[in-house]
């Protein structure tokens, strides 16, 4: 290839002033115009730092020491400021809600032009044109907060495209998106790549979801170094992913379980490119060798929801006539797209809101008359963002808070806190300040501070949102342990892996109604439910159909059972 690279890292290293060690070591990487590159790596691998070095947030906002060379379009980035860089490389940040600065779509798209002192008239004309490019022309006057997830993505993208940049950088575009919206986001990025011939960099750890569409190369980063730089087919056939804490595509895992050697010749980089011709028989045999396991839970019921209806404004129902029954010791997922009523349901259980109609029974007793505080004795709620719960400096004080507020004697508090911290694997940190903990550990602290009140039912809102594979597994294995102690666990989530791997049962809400209450394997293979709940068909189902296995749902269930067996 005789082309000149558009981005060139040459023995590039970077160290934050606040850190004792370098975050990026000796990076050598060339990216050519028009390429589409995926950069994967676990949390803390340095992939976001790499992105910050490219878009200029380093050293503009985050300070540190740079060595070696990083050139964009032949110019050394250290000689450019963040504003000059933003004219060559546009960044779409992960949290599209948090990055909207305009009150309407058109105004948000125009933000960069406002800062360039473009006249109001020209701005209106250009914003309309770019809105058309991303298919948002009819929604220019809408508020970004009223948009669907996909439309939000289009709006943020338009805000960057307005500058006619050559390179687009997507920093974790899938974090916080439900599976269906994530799929759309990847399609939008791909369309832009095809139509506009931009150079595209995607930083993400959800490999299989990005590989929904083609990419030229995947760069794997870990511990601040480039571990691999290969095409998707070679990558998923290698052991690089597993070794570096990145989840491999589920269909690849399934083939490995079936003792199939995955090779680049099978084109396994994407489910749609995969050639299963030679291995169909092996897959069928593996599937046949597994016997279905019954997942019935015959324990007495712990929580019964009867005919529950609720509306915030008295006009539009947020929940209507919800019914279900949870058994002691169950681990259940409540899924559905944003606004389906998931969070409202948990608020009703905790007594933050009162139902308009229907009843909530705890072990057969109606809890309508119980206050928030009284319900907290048996139902615990863990919020999604641990920073929204932590109010003390020391772990021990944070965990003890609920007990102190209940005037439990200090000596009892001490033993209870110690016990809970042990269960949560936080015992060595008991006297640590919370600020010294990682995100995952903070999450544990918030769970510990609820567990200390001895709830019999634990509700967690999006416990794994934004977590990489390792942290995800850590949190979920921990919850599994808690569950084994006899605590019933409800997970509000749209993480499909979580449903497949940890919650045998999923309750699906859409538009305030319960549309499914069945095994996760059934939910994730039912087209209608998938569509209504913004989920995505699991690639295992597609694999089954490619291999000529008639009962795809049972295949998915077999995979789950096999995986559980393998884990034990």
């Amino acid at each position, binding site marked *: 290839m005789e082309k000149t690279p558009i981005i060139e890292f040459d023995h590039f290293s970077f160290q934050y002033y606040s850190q004792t060690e370098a975050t990026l070591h000796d990076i050598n990487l060339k990216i050519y115009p028009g390429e589409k590159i995926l950069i994967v790596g676990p949390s803390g691998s340095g992939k976001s730092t790499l992105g910050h070095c490219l*878009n*200029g*947030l380093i050293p*503009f*906002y985050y300070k540190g020491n740079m060595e070696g060379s990083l050139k964009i379009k032949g110019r050394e980035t250290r000689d450019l400021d*963040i*504003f000059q860089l*933003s004219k060559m490389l*546009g*960044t779409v*940040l992960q*949290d599209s809600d*948090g*990055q909207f*600065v*305009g*009150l309407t779509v*058109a*105004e948000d798209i*125009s*933000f*960069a*032009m*406002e*800062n*360039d*002192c*473009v*006249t*109001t008239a020209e*701005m*209106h004309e250009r*914003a309309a044109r770019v809105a058309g490019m991303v298919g948002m022309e009819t929604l220019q006057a809408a508020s970004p907060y009223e948009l669907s997830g996909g439309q939000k993505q289009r709006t943020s993208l338009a*805000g*960057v495209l307005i500058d006619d940049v050559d390179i687009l950088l997507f920093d974790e575009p899938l974090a916080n998106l439900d599976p269906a919206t994530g799929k759309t986001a990847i399609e939008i990025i791909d369309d832009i790549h095809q139509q506009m011939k931009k150079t595209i960099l995607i930083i993400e750890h959800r490999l299989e979801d990005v590989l929904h569409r083609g990419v030229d190369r995947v760069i794997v980063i870990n511990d601040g170094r480039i571990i691999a730089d290969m095409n998707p087919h070679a990558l998923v056939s290698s052991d690089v992913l597993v070794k570096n804490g990145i989840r491999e595509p589920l269909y690849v895992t399934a083939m490995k379980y079936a003792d199939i050697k995955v090779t680049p010749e099978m084109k396994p980089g994407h489910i749609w490119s995969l050639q299963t011709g030679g291995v169909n028989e092996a897959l069928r045999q593996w599937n046949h060798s597994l016997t279905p396991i019954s997942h019935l839970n015959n324990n007495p019921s712990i929580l019964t929801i009867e005919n529950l209806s609720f509306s*915030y*404004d008295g006009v539009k129902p947020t929940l209507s006539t919800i019914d279900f029954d949870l058994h002691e010791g169950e681990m259940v997922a409540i899924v559905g797209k944003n606004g389906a009523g998931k969070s409202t349901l948990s*608020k009703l259980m*905790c*007594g*933050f809101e009162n139902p308009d109609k229907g009843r909530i029974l705890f072990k057969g007793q109606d809890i309508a008359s119980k206050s*928030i*505080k009284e*319900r*907290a004795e048996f139902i*615990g*709620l863990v*919020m999604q*963002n641990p*920073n*929204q*719960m*932590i*109010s003390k400096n020391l772990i021990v004080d944070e965990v003890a*808070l*609920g007990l102190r*507020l*209940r005037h439990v004697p200090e000596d009892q508090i001490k033993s209870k806190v110690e016990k809970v911290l042990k269960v949560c694997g936080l015992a060595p940190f008991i006297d640590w300040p919370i600020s010294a903990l990682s995100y995952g550990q903070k999450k544990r602290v918030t769970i510990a*501070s609820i567990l200390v*009140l001895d709830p019999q039912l634990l509700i967690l809102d999006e416990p794994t949102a934004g977590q990489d594979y390792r942290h995800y597994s850590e949190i979920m294995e921990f919850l599994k342990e808690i569950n084994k102690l006899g605590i019933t666990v409800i997970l509000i989530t749209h993480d499909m892996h979580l449903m497949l791997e940890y919650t045998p049962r999923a309750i699906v809400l859409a538009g305030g109604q319960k549309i499914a209450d069945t095994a996760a394997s059934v939910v994730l293979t039912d087209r209608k439910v998938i569509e209504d709940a913004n989920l995505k068909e699991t690639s295992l189902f597609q694999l089954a159909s490619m291999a000529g296995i008639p009962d795809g749902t049972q295949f998915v269930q077999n995979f789950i059972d096999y995986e559980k067996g393998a884990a034990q």
Partner: protein
Amino acid sequence: MKARLFSYNYEDTLVHRLSGLTKLICFLLLTFAIMFSYDIRVILATLVFSVILLRLSRIRWSQIKLMVLYVLIFLVVNTLITFLFSPEQGVEIYGTRNVIAKLFGRYTLTQEQLFYQGTKFFKYASVIPLGIIFLLTTNPSELASSLNGVGVHYKAAFAFSLTLRYFPDVQRVYHDISQAQQARGLEMTRKTSVGQRFKNSLMVVIPLIFSTLDRIEVITNAMDLRGFGKEKRRTWYNKSKLKAADIAAIVVCTIFLVITILISVFINHGRFYNPFL
């Protein structure tokens, strides 16, 4: 949902259609007129005028209930304290002393004091509806462009409008955190002492501050990456040209201010209207 403080809703009314700059200028003109004058006639006229405007802009009582309540409490407390500290202020200003009743100690209720404090009460009370109208009918981005239009630095103007815009969000988060903390046993009702309640509210405010700081980092990065702060000035997508109605509104308010000043100079011979002469 709960009524939210300061949430802008678009409605197609005369007041909403005015440009943000016009509303800001009118607000400043009228406020200045009221602050300048201690003439109860002018003040009551403004009060009536602003209540009419409030109706015109279709602002619902539920939107402003909480705000009005806080302001009333503040005004009543202010009135009481003024009386306690300077019970003879009215006598000093108007130069006569008509006693209504002898209270306790050195405190005597006079017609002058009553009149003075009444004037002051309505003076503040008549500014409030104006402020409410301004905040609730002005699109926050237009607010920024209009502040910038009257000479405020665009960074300050933008920061102000961002704050207003995120207010409903912060309120929602506060509400969520407060509920979660109550579930842990936090008492936020009147069942505990004031001191304890203050301490308890810290347990909601601290997480609120930290989670808000996270958000600020996100928005700052997003703004930097799109060139905010690059130039000494910036233009605005939402900048409407002044129309006939805008000019008319500014003229009316200017006339109002001029009349107020004229009344003070030629009729009252000072800032105070004195009915006791």
